């Protein structure tokens, strides 16, 4: 199966028209590309070639599938959330249970794929950036499994607020480097990982955690995550004999959303990405690059960014550290502009309420990130008739967020 949309990006890594392809006075600019220093250009070319070879190598794919099944625990269930559906009284809500993966989130789908590619390329050292720590834990996990040393860059601010994941990574044998530069959060961790990579091009593989960065990363990460949508499609066809009407997923960088969406791009299925509205879009304290940002260039790709009038990157804010990033994957920027997917924003408080509701009605503790998508799915379900089907990507479990959740939902317990 191929179409205009599923064949993207083009050879230069652009989703949509390439920069300067059209009228020079009105340059049409695509999203994506490879905006990196010359030192890295030959290297990302090597990664692209190695990845394209691995994609069609049956031995590589067989090894990936075997580990996905026996180590990660795939396929994850597509679960009919009966009581949430009853509660909202409209469309049927299904949850794609990525929280049941080994390490508790979708992040390991990509970490495993890239680590196997690194091994195939003979790279002896893995590096990664992490915000909330879920991608860091996933990389530390596969690094341990494959016997490769790994270094995780994490903002000093994030290290303070995500101690359990920091301890987990240490236990798994990872070295954690606190990043103090800039604002000491996820974007700075990514800058620092890029700096490490420039200095260690010969032996190091950089496992980027989301569908962003220079080409081929947005495509490669999407492909490794697309197992989410492929399974969802098979599962719903097998049990209900139909496709969903609507897909809903949270979007920080956007890897779980791209993973869910990709298998349905050519179908008559609505797609909704849910950004973090933080304290509200009007407050200025949010992480909604599409709803509150503008196009620009950061971390090797052109995409929507939170930036000031001078092109300096602004701080993102979200109660969920995993959505706390001032950019978004370039394919989402393209899907947004083309109208193929729509993007809404959900506040900190709405996400917190969705956590409580999902716990009480389904006995499932979702990650704060995923709770953004749950809130939007509930709102939509209530508006739609009972014969409609909504699939929500439950991208991760919420154990890591217990401190934050307790403080906000049960302040009396947090004080004791």
């Amino acid at each position, binding site marked *: 199966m191929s179409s205009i949309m599923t064949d993207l990006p083009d*050879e*230069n890594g652009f989703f949509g028209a390439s*920069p*300067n392809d059209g009228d*020079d006075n009105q*340059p049409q600019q695509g999203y994506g*590309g*490879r*905006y*990196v*220093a*010359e*030192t*890295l*250009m*030959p*290297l990302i070319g090597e990664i692209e070639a190695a990845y394209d070879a691995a994609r069609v190598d049956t031995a590589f794919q067989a090894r990936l599938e075997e580990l996905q099944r026996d180590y990660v625990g795939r396929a994850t269930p597509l679960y009919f959330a009966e009581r949430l559906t009853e509660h909202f009284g409209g469309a049927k809500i299904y949850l794609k249970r990525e929280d049941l993966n080994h390490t508790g989130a979708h992040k390991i789908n990509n970490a495993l794929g890239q680590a196997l590619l690194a091994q195939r390329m003979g790279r002896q050292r893995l590096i990664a950036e992490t915000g909330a720590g879920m991608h860091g834990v996933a990389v530390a996990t596969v690094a341990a499994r494959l016997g490769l040393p790994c270094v995780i860059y994490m903002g000093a601010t994030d290290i303070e607020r995500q101690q359990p994941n920091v301890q987990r990574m240490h236990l798994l044998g990872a070295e954690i480097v606190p990043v103090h*530069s*800039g604002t000491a959060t996820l*974007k*700075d961790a990514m*800058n620092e990982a*890029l*700096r490490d990579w*420039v*200095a*260690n*091009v*010969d032996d190091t593989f950089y496992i980027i955690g989301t569908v962003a960065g220079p080409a081929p990363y947005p495509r490669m990460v999407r492909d490794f995550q697309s197992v989410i949508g492929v399974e969802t499609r098979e599962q719903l066809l097998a049990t209900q004999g139909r496709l969903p009407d609507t897909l809903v997923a949270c979007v920080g960088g956007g890897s779980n959303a791209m993973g869910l969406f990709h298998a349905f791009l050519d179908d008559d299925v609505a797609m909704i990405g849910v950004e973090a509205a933080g304290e509200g879009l009007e407050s200025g304290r949010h992480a909604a690059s599409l709803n509150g940002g503008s196009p*620009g*260039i*950061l*971390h*090797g790709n052109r995409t929507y*960014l939170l*930036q000031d*009038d*001078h*092109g*300096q*990157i602004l701080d993102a804010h979200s109660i969920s550290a995993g959505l706390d990033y001032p950019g978004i994957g370039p394919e989402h920027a393209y899907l947004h502009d083309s109208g193929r997917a729509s993007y809404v924003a959900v506040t900190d408080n709405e996400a917190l309420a969705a956590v409580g509701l999902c716990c009480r009605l389904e006995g499932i503790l979702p990650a704060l990130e995923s709770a953004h998508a749950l809130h939007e799915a509930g709102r939509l379900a209530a508006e739609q008739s009972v014969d409609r089907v909504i699939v929500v990507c439950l991208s991760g479990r919420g154990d890591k967020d217990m401190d934050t959740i307790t403080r906000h939902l049960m302040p009396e317990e947090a004080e004791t």
Partner: protein
Amino acid sequence: MSAMPLNTETLNTDSRLTRRFAALREEQRAALVTYVMAGDPDLEQSRQLLERLPKAGADIIELGMPFSDPMADGVAIQRAGQRALANGQTLVRTLDMVRDFREGDADTPIVLMGYLNPIQRFGEERFLQAAAEAGVDGLILVDLPLEHGAALTARARDLGLARIPLVAPTTPLERLPALLAQGDGFVYRIAFNGVTGSQRLDIAASLGDSLCDLKRQTPLPIAVGFGVRDGDTAAAIAAIADAVVVGSALVERLTDQGIEAALALVGELAEAMQRAP
């Protein structure tokens, strides 16, 4: 991947950069290229430093345009950029600095170095015109690779701005022709794989060999930068290259000891390079 063919008709044969390199060739010495961050530590001190650099021994000035997320820079230049931004530095102010400098110095080439996003936000065409009008001579754009730079390079050439290509130790020989075809002014050879100022440069024989390879492929002067911290290193590079770039060491000296000490370092380096064989 497409590269722009070499268009010799639009190369700038008479520019401040070509004149400066021709004069230095007469004098049989290499150029000292000094990097400072525009607006660091604040606008007034940065203006003073810029104005006094040529007399202290700088042959060419690289002026950094601060960016919030400088992914190819080490700690010294990152912090310089943060200080400049905290003190309100903008692209407009940086161009004003160049314009003011030009009133007192018509000969010393100034090259702007930075990242693409602030330029795109300002508007590429608007920026190129304003830069040319202010008296800028060239551009080093860290995150604009050959593959995405053809249109900007062509427009810069039309306006008399040199697009200075960065060549890395990782750059394969077969990539050089396309890279060099887009460049003019001079070639910036990054001395090692890493970020600016991250280590002391060790002049290995391999660097000399690689510069010979490069010289065979381009008539442009070759500058070597990243890791030049003292007179000995500067002199060693001056012996094998056309220009020596000093950045982080100068920025650190400015931060730690102020303008006079920074200018003294420029003088020391210039003097050491004069002694080069």
